[in-house]
């Protein structure tokens, strides 16, 4: 679905033409975004455009603002300045209807899984489509079973979240987010809470999503994974995008001393 660019839509020479390619318009459009916690400014003017189907890895030290940026994109954090659009849907805090519309375009996966412990695995996946998209129970169940099969957990439909391993829980969380058919998927350090031997199964699912053309933005500490899967790497430092480019360039030939230091500290 195409919406017209709003008054504060992507300005400049290249506004979307009515018959233009959808891929030419950024699916996530962040401009001049500033975010403060009290007097502490954690995002100091972020400009970022993500194309449809692009896989972005956001890296940086803890406290650099990378998680905060991700959480701004689906409105979990309120920002003070700048504009943000997802799929042509502007983010307007305080407007519950606009937030609900925007969030249907954005899926999010958390470090701590955040499955609903009082619902079975299947019901976790079915909940939002039945409520928000008013999908019938039967259709929602068919979809949930298909998504669970896709993340390799077809037989866990009736299981409870606390009966699953961390890796399995995270894969359910991915299926749950996919059930809303988002245009963008945000991954906030999704393997950081996992035992090392469980990281692989989750990354494999994410890689599958990337291969299928899902637009992904992931904050990650898995540098090898970022290098392998992403189209573009964003290095954040002190609330700004410090360096940005294709993974070969950022990992192979870092330009700034901060990124060099960050990368060398990992080894």
């Amino acid at each position, binding site marked *: 679905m195409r919406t017209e660019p709003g008054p504060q839509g992507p300005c400049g020479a290249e506004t979307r033409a009515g018959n233009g390619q959808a891929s030419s318009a950024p699916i996530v459009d962040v401009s001049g975004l500033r975010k403060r916690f009290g007097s502490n400014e954690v995002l100091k003017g972020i400009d970022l455009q993500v194309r449809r189907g692009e896989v972005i890895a956001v890296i940086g030290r803890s406290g650099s603002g990378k998680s905060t940026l991700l959480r701004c994109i*689906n*409105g*979990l954090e309120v920002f003070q300045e700048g504009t943000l659009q997802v799929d042509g849907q502007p983010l307007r805090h305080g407007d*519950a209807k606009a937030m*609900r519309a925007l*969030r*249907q375009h*954005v*899926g*999010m996966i*958390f470090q*701590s899984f*955040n*499955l*609903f*412990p*009082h619902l079975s695995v299947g019901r976790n996946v079915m*909940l*939002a489509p039945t*409520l*928000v998209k008013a999908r019938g129970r039967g259709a929602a169940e068919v979809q949930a079973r298909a998504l669970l099969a896709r993340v390799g957990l077809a037989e866990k439909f009736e299981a*409870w979240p606390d009966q699953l391993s961390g890796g399995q829980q995270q894969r359910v*969380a991915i299926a*749950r*987010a996919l059930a*809303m058919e988002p245009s963008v998927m945000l991954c906030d350090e999704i393997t950081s809470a996992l035992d090392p031997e469980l990281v692989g199964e989750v990354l494999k699912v994410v890689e599958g999503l990337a291969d299928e053309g899902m637009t992904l933005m992931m904050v990650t500490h898995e540098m090898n994974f970022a290098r392998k899967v992403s189209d573009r790497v964003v290095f954040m430092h002190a609330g700004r995008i410090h360096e940005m480019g294709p993974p070969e360039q950022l990992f192979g030939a870092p330009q700034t001393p901060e990124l060099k230091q960050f990368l060398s500290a990992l080894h």
Partner: protein
Amino acid sequence: MVEFTLWDIVRNLLLAVRWTVVLSLIAFVGGGLVGLALLTARLGGGRASGQAVAGYVQLFQGTPLLMQLFLAYFGLGLLGVDVSPWVAAGVALTLYTSAFLAEIWRGCVDAIPKGQWEAADSLALSFGEKLRHVVGPQALRIAVAPTVGFLVQVIKGTALASVIGFVELTKAGTMITNATFMPFTVYACVALMYFALCWPISAWSKRLERRLRRAH
């Protein structure tokens, strides 16, 4: 002098127990509904409504139920509103119960990890849907024990309504004592009847808690 049998005492107390039960039910139902409304206002409303609810809770938690009963009965009377002991006791107990329940339930909602709200937010659930389908059911499970504990307090608290002339179990006990001069027997019966009301509720709460745990 008239002789009173134990059955005379028990029979008259049983008649009075009805009013203790009715008063408790008014407090439970009225207090529960008002408490739920207060909780929703506190969670979903803005800053102002949150502070208003907090003030309300402080007011009723910080004053004795006895004073609230006096004020409801005599205070409204001074304003020219003619209130019966029924109305005064019902109103005072409802407000008192609602304040405590709102606070107990808020604590239970607060105990649900923030990640649950955020996950529900990310799935585009509305405030009502989050409360009804995600946070509410989880909060309910931990709310059973403190809620029932407080309701048992309310049953015993209805005894205070005797001070405004409401004849419930305690007041009936006093009246019967004055007629029979058998305080020990009468008050022992009164105590047993309170126990007979409260104990099954506590036992039911334990069963309910176990069932909610198993359902998950």
